[in-house]
Protein backbone atom coordinates (compact mmCIF):
# COMPACT_ATOMS: atom_id res chain seq x y z
CA UNK A 1 0.00 0.00 0.00
CA UNK A 2 1.42 3.38 -0.98
CA UNK A 3 1.00 6.35 1.26
CA UNK A 4 1.73 9.84 0.06
CA UNK A 5 2.32 12.97 2.07
CA UNK A 6 0.65 16.22 1.20
CA UNK A 7 0.67 18.53 4.15
CA UNK A 8 -2.24 20.88 4.69
CA UNK A 9 -1.26 24.04 6.61
CA UNK A 10 -4.59 24.31 8.45
CA UNK A 11 -4.30 20.71 9.65
CA UNK A 12 -0.74 21.34 10.81
CA UNK A 13 -1.95 24.22 12.96
CA UNK A 14 -4.60 22.01 14.54
CA UNK A 15 -2.03 19.29 15.27
CA UNK A 16 0.34 21.80 16.82
CA UNK A 17 -2.53 22.87 19.06
CA UNK A 18 -3.28 19.23 19.89
CA UNK A 19 0.25 18.46 21.07
CA UNK A 20 0.22 21.71 23.02
CA UNK A 21 -2.92 20.84 24.98
CA UNK A 22 -2.32 17.11 25.36
CA UNK A 23 0.82 16.19 27.25
CA UNK A 24 0.10 12.48 26.74
CA UNK A 25 0.31 12.46 22.96
CA UNK A 26 3.81 11.77 21.66
CA UNK A 27 3.14 11.69 17.91
CA UNK A 28 0.08 12.28 15.76
CA UNK A 29 -0.71 11.99 12.06
CA UNK A 30 -3.82 13.08 10.17
CA UNK A 31 -4.58 11.19 6.98
CA UNK A 32 -7.45 10.98 4.55
CA UNK A 33 -9.37 7.76 3.88
CA UNK A 34 -6.92 6.87 1.07
CA UNK A 35 -3.94 7.15 3.37
CA UNK A 36 -2.59 10.48 2.19
CA UNK A 37 -0.95 12.30 5.08
CA UNK A 38 -2.40 15.77 5.65
CA UNK A 39 -0.49 16.75 8.75
CA UNK A 40 1.92 15.19 11.19
CA UNK A 41 3.99 16.01 14.22
CA UNK A 42 6.84 13.89 12.83
CA UNK A 43 8.89 13.94 9.62
CA UNK A 44 7.45 12.76 6.30
CA UNK A 45 9.10 9.33 6.34
CA UNK A 46 7.80 8.44 9.80
CA UNK A 47 4.43 10.02 9.05
CA UNK A 48 4.10 7.78 5.99
CA UNK A 49 4.91 4.66 8.00
CA UNK A 50 2.49 5.64 10.77
CA UNK A 51 -0.25 6.38 8.23
CA UNK A 52 0.25 3.03 6.49
CA UNK A 53 0.06 1.07 9.76
CA UNK A 54 -2.90 3.13 11.02
CA UNK A 55 -4.86 2.58 7.83
CA UNK A 56 -4.19 -1.18 7.84
CA UNK A 57 -5.00 -1.41 11.55
CA UNK A 58 -8.26 0.48 11.14
CA UNK A 59 -9.35 -1.42 8.02
CA UNK A 60 -8.73 -4.81 9.62
CA UNK A 61 -10.42 -3.77 12.86
CA UNK A 62 -13.40 -2.46 10.90
CA UNK A 63 -13.96 -5.94 9.50
CA UNK A 64 -14.55 -7.41 12.95
CA UNK A 65 -18.24 -6.48 12.93
CA UNK A 66 -20.91 -5.28 10.54
CA UNK A 67 -21.21 -2.03 12.46
CA UNK A 68 -18.85 0.71 11.37
CA UNK A 69 -15.80 1.26 13.54
CA UNK A 70 -15.43 4.81 14.89
CA UNK A 71 -12.32 4.59 17.04
CA UNK A 72 -9.86 2.15 18.54
CA UNK A 73 -7.04 2.00 20.98
CA UNK A 74 -4.32 -0.58 21.41
CA UNK A 75 -2.57 -0.87 24.76
CA UNK A 76 0.91 -2.32 24.28
CA UNK A 77 3.75 -2.92 26.70
CA UNK A 78 5.68 0.11 25.47
CA UNK A 79 2.83 2.53 24.92
CA UNK A 80 -0.59 2.98 23.38
CA UNK A 81 -1.92 3.62 19.90
CA UNK A 82 -5.13 5.50 19.13
CA UNK A 83 -6.99 5.86 15.84
CA UNK A 84 -10.16 7.96 15.47
CA UNK A 85 -12.09 8.68 12.30
CA UNK A 86 -14.64 11.17 11.07
CA UNK A 87 -16.41 11.25 7.71
CA UNK A 88 -13.29 12.19 5.74
CA UNK A 89 -10.21 11.64 7.83
CA UNK A 90 -8.41 9.48 10.34
CA UNK A 91 -6.16 10.69 13.09
CA UNK A 92 -3.60 8.31 14.57
CA UNK A 93 -1.66 9.06 17.72
CA UNK A 94 0.74 7.35 20.07
CA UNK A 95 1.26 7.82 23.81
CA UNK A 96 3.41 6.34 26.53
CA UNK A 97 2.15 3.39 28.62
CA UNK A 98 -1.05 3.78 30.67
CA UNK A 99 -2.59 6.91 29.16
CA UNK A 100 -5.99 8.29 30.17
CA UNK A 101 -7.77 6.86 27.13
CA UNK A 102 -10.93 8.95 27.46
CA UNK A 103 -8.95 12.16 27.52
CA UNK A 104 -6.84 11.18 24.51
CA UNK A 105 -9.95 10.24 22.51
CA UNK A 106 -11.53 13.58 23.43
CA UNK A 107 -8.48 15.53 22.28
CA UNK A 108 -8.22 13.59 19.03
CA UNK A 109 -11.91 14.11 18.23
CA UNK A 110 -11.55 17.82 18.95
CA UNK A 111 -8.60 17.99 16.56
CA UNK A 112 -10.57 16.20 13.83
CA UNK A 113 -13.49 18.59 14.34
CA UNK A 114 -11.19 21.56 13.94
CA UNK A 115 -10.05 20.23 10.54
CA UNK A 116 -13.61 19.88 9.40
CA UNK A 117 -14.47 23.46 10.30
CA UNK A 118 -13.77 25.99 7.59
CA UNK A 119 -10.78 28.22 8.19
CA UNK A 120 -11.80 31.56 9.63
CA UNK A 121 -11.91 34.25 7.02
CA UNK A 122 -9.32 36.98 7.49
CA UNK A 123 -10.89 40.05 8.97
CA UNK A 124 -11.25 42.88 6.55
CA UNK A 125 -10.03 46.27 7.53
CA UNK A 126 -12.93 48.52 8.34
CA UNK A 127 -14.00 50.42 5.28
CA UNK A 128 -13.06 54.01 5.26
CA UNK A 129 -16.00 56.27 5.37
CA UNK A 130 -16.29 58.11 2.22
CA UNK A 131 -15.86 61.78 2.73
CA UNK A 132 -19.18 63.10 1.78
CA UNK A 133 -20.57 66.47 2.16
CA UNK A 134 -24.12 66.65 3.04
CA UNK A 135 -26.10 68.97 1.10
CA UNK A 136 -27.80 71.44 3.22
CA UNK A 137 -31.44 71.19 2.88
CA UNK A 138 -32.69 73.79 0.70
CA UNK A 139 -34.21 76.22 3.07
CA UNK A 140 -36.49 77.45 0.40
CA UNK A 141 -38.10 74.06 -0.04
Amino acid at each position, binding site marked *: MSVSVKRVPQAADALAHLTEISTQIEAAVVLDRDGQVQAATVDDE*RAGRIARSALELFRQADQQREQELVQLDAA*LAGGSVFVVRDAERLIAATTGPGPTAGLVFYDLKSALRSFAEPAPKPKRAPAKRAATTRKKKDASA
Partner: protein
Amino acid sequence: MRARRALAVGAALGSAIGAVVLRRRAGRSRDRVELYFEDGSLVTLAQGTAGAEPLLLHARELLAAARG
Protein backbone atom coordinates in the same frame (compact mmCIF):
# COMPACT_ATOMS: atom_id res chain seq x y z
CA MET B 1 -0.98 -21.20 70.40
CA ARG B 2 -3.05 -18.10 69.64
CA ALA B 3 -0.02 -16.31 68.23
CA ARG B 4 0.80 -19.24 65.97
CA ARG B 5 -2.73 -19.29 64.64
CA ALA B 6 -2.67 -15.55 63.99
CA LEU B 7 0.62 -15.97 62.15
CA ALA B 8 -0.86 -18.73 59.96
CA VAL B 9 -3.97 -16.66 59.18
CA GLY B 10 -1.81 -13.63 58.38
CA ALA B 11 0.41 -15.65 56.06
CA ALA B 12 -2.60 -17.13 54.25
CA LEU B 13 -4.20 -13.71 53.89
CA GLY B 14 -0.95 -12.19 52.64
CA SER B 15 -0.41 -14.84 50.00
CA ALA B 16 -4.04 -14.51 48.82
CA ILE B 17 -3.67 -10.73 48.42
CA GLY B 18 -0.33 -11.21 46.67
CA ALA B 19 -1.88 -13.67 44.23
CA VAL B 20 -4.67 -11.22 43.37
CA VAL B 21 -2.19 -8.35 42.85
CA LEU B 22 0.05 -10.50 40.65
CA ARG B 23 -2.88 -11.71 38.58
CA ARG B 24 -4.11 -8.15 38.06
CA ARG B 25 -0.66 -6.96 37.11
CA ALA B 26 -0.25 -9.84 34.63
CA GLY B 27 -3.64 -9.05 33.12
CA ARG B 28 -2.69 -5.41 32.68
CA SER B 29 0.60 -6.22 31.00
CA ARG B 30 -1.12 -8.23 28.26
CA ASP B 31 -1.42 -6.29 25.03
CA ARG B 32 -5.00 -5.63 23.94
CA VAL B 33 -7.03 -3.74 21.36
CA GLU B 34 -10.34 -2.04 22.12
CA LEU B 35 -12.68 -1.37 19.22
CA TYR B 36 -15.50 1.17 19.52
CA PHE B 37 -18.32 0.81 17.00
CA GLU B 38 -20.91 3.26 15.74
CA ASP B 39 -23.75 1.63 17.72
CA GLY B 40 -21.84 2.25 20.96
CA SER B 41 -20.62 -1.32 21.36
CA LEU B 42 -17.10 -2.07 22.51
CA VAL B 43 -15.08 -5.15 21.58
CA THR B 44 -11.89 -5.95 23.49
CA LEU B 45 -9.40 -8.30 21.89
CA ALA B 46 -6.67 -9.38 24.28
CA GLN B 47 -3.38 -10.87 23.19
CA GLY B 48 -3.83 -14.55 22.43
CA THR B 49 -7.51 -14.31 21.51
CA ALA B 50 -8.84 -14.87 18.00
CA GLY B 51 -8.40 -11.88 15.75
CA ALA B 52 -6.16 -9.95 18.11
CA GLU B 53 -2.75 -10.77 16.65
CA PRO B 54 -3.04 -9.08 13.21
CA LEU B 55 -4.32 -5.92 14.89
CA LEU B 56 -1.63 -5.96 17.56
CA LEU B 57 0.99 -6.46 14.84
CA HIS B 58 -0.09 -3.26 13.05
CA ALA B 59 -0.35 -1.40 16.36
CA ARG B 60 3.22 -2.41 17.26
CA GLU B 61 4.42 -1.31 13.80
CA LEU B 62 2.68 2.02 14.29
CA LEU B 63 4.25 2.56 17.71
CA ALA B 64 7.69 1.60 16.39
CA ALA B 65 7.29 3.99 13.43
CA ALA B 66 6.31 6.82 15.75
CA ARG B 67 9.39 6.32 17.87
CA GLY B 68 11.67 6.17 14.83
